[in-house]
């Protein structure tokens, strides 16, 4: 049965590969990208494999919460015109930055894009996810979350920024968010999963980086798998029924235990509340 799947960061890398593979299976794709040109090229790429693909792209800069709200409004309208239910949201967009940078909303860039954007987008799309019989929220995390710690009082590393620490921390936030989502919405029709795609040969480490970090990534990425390989767990979870109980972290299409710090209810709860405040959501996300 064809599903309506929404994917962020869908113009390149794992996001584009996921969109292509899901379109090949006949699913209806809503993609998001920052650049009109890249969105256009992504559509062409998807239609190369299936000329009849049902695909629509929207443009948004996920570092800006106003842009996220705008595009979610547009997508909600689009979904209303196409059955009214969203079956799967894939929070895949991600960034890496060598330097401490503050977004227009006043948040550190990796924290804003890799965590807050996913949180806000999921909350804004919840009414449409609830309309589906069996909806899923998938978030692209990373194995790097195993080595991460979170200082909940200083999630933006304002005075002591470290590019890797910031990245790993946001990936742990992805898993904490997924854990807390399932805890809060237990018994509902929407289930959340965090996905480790493994080391994938993408261009993510080339953007917003300089010096040693750029050089290391140029070497390290060569040891990574193809984007199609990296996308397979997302594709599996988006398109297949998942029956394993209490498993929400997946790698290679199999459930896996996440970092035990990702199962800390107190931290997960604080992160949720902090994100709610930072996104200006109030009680609507409780």
């Amino acid at each position, binding site marked *: 049965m064809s599903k309506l799947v929404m994917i962020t960061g869908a113009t390149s890398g794992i996001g584009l590969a996921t969109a292509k593979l899901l379109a090949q299976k006949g699913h209806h794709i809503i993609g998001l990208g920052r650049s009109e040109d890249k969105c256009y090229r992504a559509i062409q790429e998807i239609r190369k494999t299936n000329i009849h693909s049902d695909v629509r792209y929207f443009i948004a800069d996920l570092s800006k919460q*106003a842009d996220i709200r705008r595009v979610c409004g547009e997508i909600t309208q689009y979904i209303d015109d196409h059955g009214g239910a969203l079956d799967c949201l894939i929070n895949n967009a991600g960034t890496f930055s060598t*330097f401490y*940078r*503050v977004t227009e909303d*006043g948040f550190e860039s990796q924290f804003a894009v890799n965590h807050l954007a996913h949180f806000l987008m999921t909350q804004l799309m919840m009414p449409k996810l609830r309309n589906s019989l069996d909806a899923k929220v998938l978030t692209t995390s990373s194995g790097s979350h195993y080595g991460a710690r979170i200082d909940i009082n200083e999630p933006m590393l304002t005075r002591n920024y470290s590019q890797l620490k910031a990245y790993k921390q946001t990936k742990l936030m992805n898993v904490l968010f997924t854990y807390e989502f399932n805890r809060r919405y237990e018994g509902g029709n929407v289930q959340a999963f965090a996905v480790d795609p493994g080391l994938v040969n993408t261009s993510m480490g080339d953007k917003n980086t300089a010096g040693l970090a750029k050089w290391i990534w140029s070497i390290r990425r060569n040891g990574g798998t193809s984007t199609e390989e990296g996308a397979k767990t997302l594709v599996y979870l988006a398109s297949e029924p998942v029956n394993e109980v209490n498993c929400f972290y997946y790698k290679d299409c199999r459930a896996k235990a996440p970092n035990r710090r990702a199962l800390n209810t107190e931290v997960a709860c604080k992160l949720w509340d902090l994100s709610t*405040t930072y996104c200006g959501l109030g009680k609507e996300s409780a």
Partner: protein
Amino acid sequence: MKNTTYTMITGATGGLGRAFVVECAKQQRNLFLSDIHEDKLAQLAQSIRRSHGIDVQYKALDFLDEASFSDYWNAIEDMGIQFDMLINVAGLDYEGSFFENNTQDLMNIIRVNSLSVIGMVKNIVQYRNKNQPLNVINVSSLAGFYPMPLKATYSASKRLITHLSIALNHEIKAYNGNILSLCPAGMATFDEVINSIQSQGFMGRVTTLDTGYIVHRTIDKVKKGHRVYIPGIVNKVLHFVGKMIPDNIVAGLIYKRWIKTREIAQAQ
């Protein structure tokens, strides 16, 4: 009792301005923000209010428009608020050599970078909280220490800020004030700067420091009475060596370096 003392930040929606906003918010300082982009000010103010629980006021300010400057200070008068800190971040630069740029643009660099500082420092003293020290941070640049071909107007505008700040320190003591001139090298605050740092190679990377760290240290230093802050050991060494060498030779070396950097950037 409601705290009606504020920190004023100009150029608040730019990369460095936002970093100062976040640091001050973290210190629970009430903020009064200005920038040419009113919509961006509104967005930032709203987000900072809810994420840090402080009061954030803002008003658009265009340093190229005298009426805007008057309106700005009239609004402050009407609001009846006081300040204990001013952070002058607003700045302007154009790529290209002196003769490639048009005259108006070059004059605007001086207006926004230098003349604005004169106007802001002069006015803030009048609206200071007389019960507290007044701290002023003027964002200058390492470029202000050298005559810098291909950035001649920019470096001259920053030299004015540094010299003005050092000199005014003696006068502002009478108002319980202190002025610090922040003189950083590259600040990786947006994509174009990161690309420029990349094209400068090793020197670009070692002279570029973390913005969050710099803004925290800058506020710490102005409160301790420092007058000039050059972030980073490499930049301090460059400044020291630069002082030992005649200006004309320094200008020649910088010219060669910038020409090479431009060629690399164009090739990319």
